[in-house]
């Protein structure tokens, strides 16, 4: 694991959250690693794929299917998603150690989605190293990620006896729906870049965030935790709503950090969103407020796909001059406040609610 990337962010967390997170981090790492590597066991693989697993099969799959994902897992991100599953399980009286696959599921899906995001955006870097498609090619990386995403259903299915019929159904439904709506949200994102629409609205951007960015970041891990933990229906719904608010706040902060990173270990190309011509909330705000030559200049830069740092800095200055970053941050804070309102309705002990509240605070205060 790259320690410079994966540990520095703890300073952004409240101690009561940071300590709990650090307590579960080794288990999360082990659960993810064990679940991913378990697939290399010939017997497990044969059962999963329904074909005899010879050395040649193992070698072929290791190289094409496992390697792209393992490259991301070895660079280990923050593992916040499996931690969230642990937090929920513990909150509802379950031992996360008895639910290794469901803990790992959240990270396997998250990492797979990052590979697909990087393919879609043609991103050069992820977690400070070349993106999967730079290493393995677009199609191998994409097919590998899609295979892992859908292998998640098997992880749920394998635990169906322990989960029971209703929870298995709920988990498979959650996975299906979240995967699908992520595609719908991404459709808007990539279509805007393709058709270079200028008249898009901030409210339309937020709608695509609801479906794209909130899913794998927070809503799905919280659903996995709530369903596996056996949360009451009302709590499960509130946790999903909490995940959505958190995901909205996360994305708006992420958009700001993308063009103005506050940490030398950001791990991505600076102002990548401007390079890709993305119409994020701050860009839409700026386009609404800029006039004449300044507006035309921002559009020109967005459509140029330039990597020139000086030109990118010019675009950031134009956006910042309109107050767009400030207003995006204010909206992120509003979503963060919604989180507190939702937490009040949960039937959990105060300590668990406080941890979730601290997580919301971390999301808007983080430097990366």
């Amino acid at each position, binding site marked *: 694991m790259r320690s410079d990337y994966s540990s520095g962010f703890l300073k952004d967390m409240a101690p009561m959250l940071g300590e709990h997170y650090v307590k579960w981090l080794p288990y999360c790492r082990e659960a993810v690693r064990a679940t991913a590597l378990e697939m290399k066991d010939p017997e497990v693989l044969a059962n999963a*794929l329904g074909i005899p697993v010879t050395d040649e099969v193992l070698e072929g799959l290791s190289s094409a299917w496992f390697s792209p994902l393992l490259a991301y897992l070895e660079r280990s991100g923050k593992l916040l998603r499996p931690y969230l599953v642990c937090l929920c399980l513990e909150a509802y009286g379950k031992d996360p150690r008895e639910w290794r696959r469901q803990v790992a599921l959240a990270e396997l899906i998250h990492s797979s989605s990052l590979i697909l995001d990087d393919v879609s955006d043609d991103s050069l870097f992820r977690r400070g190293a070349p993106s999967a498609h730079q290493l393995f090619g677009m199609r191998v990386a*994409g*097919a590998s990620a899609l295979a892992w995403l859908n292998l998640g259903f098997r992880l749920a299915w394998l635990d169906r006896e322990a989960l029971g019929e209703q929870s298995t*159904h709920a988990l*498979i439904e959650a996975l299906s729906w979240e995967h699908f709506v992520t595609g719908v949200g991404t459709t808007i994102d990539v*279509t805007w870049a393709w058709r270079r*629409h200028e008249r898009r609205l901030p409210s*339309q951007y937020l709608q*695509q965030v609801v479906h794209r960015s909130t899913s794998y970041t927070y809503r799905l891990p919280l659903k996995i935790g709530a369903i596996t933990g056996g949360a009451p229906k009302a709590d499960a719904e509130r946790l999903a709503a909490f995940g959505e608010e958190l995901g909205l706040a996360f994305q708006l902060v992420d958009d700001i950090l993308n063009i103005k990173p506050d940490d030398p270990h950001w791990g991505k190309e600076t102002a990548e969103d401007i390079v890709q011509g993305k119409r994020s909330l701050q860009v839409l705000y700026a386009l609404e407020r800029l006039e004449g030559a300044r507006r035309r200049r921002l559009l020109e830069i967005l459509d140029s796909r330039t990597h020139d740092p000086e030109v990118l800095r010019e675009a950031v200055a134009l956006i910042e001059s309109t107050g767009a970053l400030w207003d995006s941050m204010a909206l992120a804070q509003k979503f963060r406040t919604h989180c507190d309102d939702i937490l009040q309705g949960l039937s959990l002990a105060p300590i668990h609610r406080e941890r979730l509240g601290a997580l919301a605070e971390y999301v808007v205060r983080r430097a990366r």
Partner: protein
Amino acid sequence: MKTVESHPFPEARARGTKALEQLLPRQCTPQWLELMTGPARFDWDVEAIQQGFVDPLYELFDQKTERWRPTLAALLIEAGGRAPERYPAMLAAVELQHLALLLLERLRNGRNIAESTAPETRLPLPVLVTVAYTAKQMASTLVIRHEGALATGTRSWLAYQVSRALYEASAGMAVDIQFAEKEASPRERWHLRLLAPLTFRLPVDCALAALDRHEASGARMLREAASHASIAYRLAMDVLGRRARARGEPAQALHEVPIHWSPLAPRPGETPSVAWRRSVESGLVAEVLSHARRERQEAGEVLATADGPLAATLRVFIEAVVDMRLAEAEEVCHAE
């Protein structure tokens, strides 16, 4: 190549067409989006969904009109004594999976967008892969949320089978591409077995779920026969596709589902027509067809041990569709 004018099962095919049009209307509306994703919290950009998802999918849907997969599912459901029109979501799901696979097959494996987008597609790569992703993932959502005629446990099982077919095929595709890149020669063409489920096995799974026979003793045999038939079909299509490319037919008009690692694939620097000529003269085409025949025979042998209307219907389907393509491919081989 024979086209839909000679479709052997026009009614079942029409059900497949109708099912997709019912579950994914050609004109995207806020009502459809709400049905599929829930109420809008802010504002939908309906136009973007239309341009970036619905239109590209229907463009392909209108080009590829055989609908073999929903046709097979509908035939089997009917043979089992139920009305296929009660199960539109699963019929739409299997066609969506097929369309998504076709879209992805159009790409090259470059290390960036410019290297990866195939010249014949007008869609930028991010849009194309997103259409394919969304279509694939819509399939399991359709089954688990919109196939109301199935019991809860059966819907979970079928959604799992949809996802299983996806991860098997995706893993198979990744290996297939890498074999092709490395010019490796797998001793056994096992990766074809991973690519098979999305062809005819998933439609069999749909029918088994509709008939509530997914746990019945004969289910395994039907699935196995469908897998063998799928491989035979893909190999025959590989021969027909390579020959069509050698003759300069436009890619959009091809009915192929290519296999990237294939003895028939052009070598570096070789044109499709030179590769085809070499493949014919060296006996590679005959070898591929021989493999296809063996798979077809195995499908027949498995079905010979199975009784009942489902096995009989699958047999009829294989004879009509797989044998038709095999015969066409053999005719091509002999003509050369």
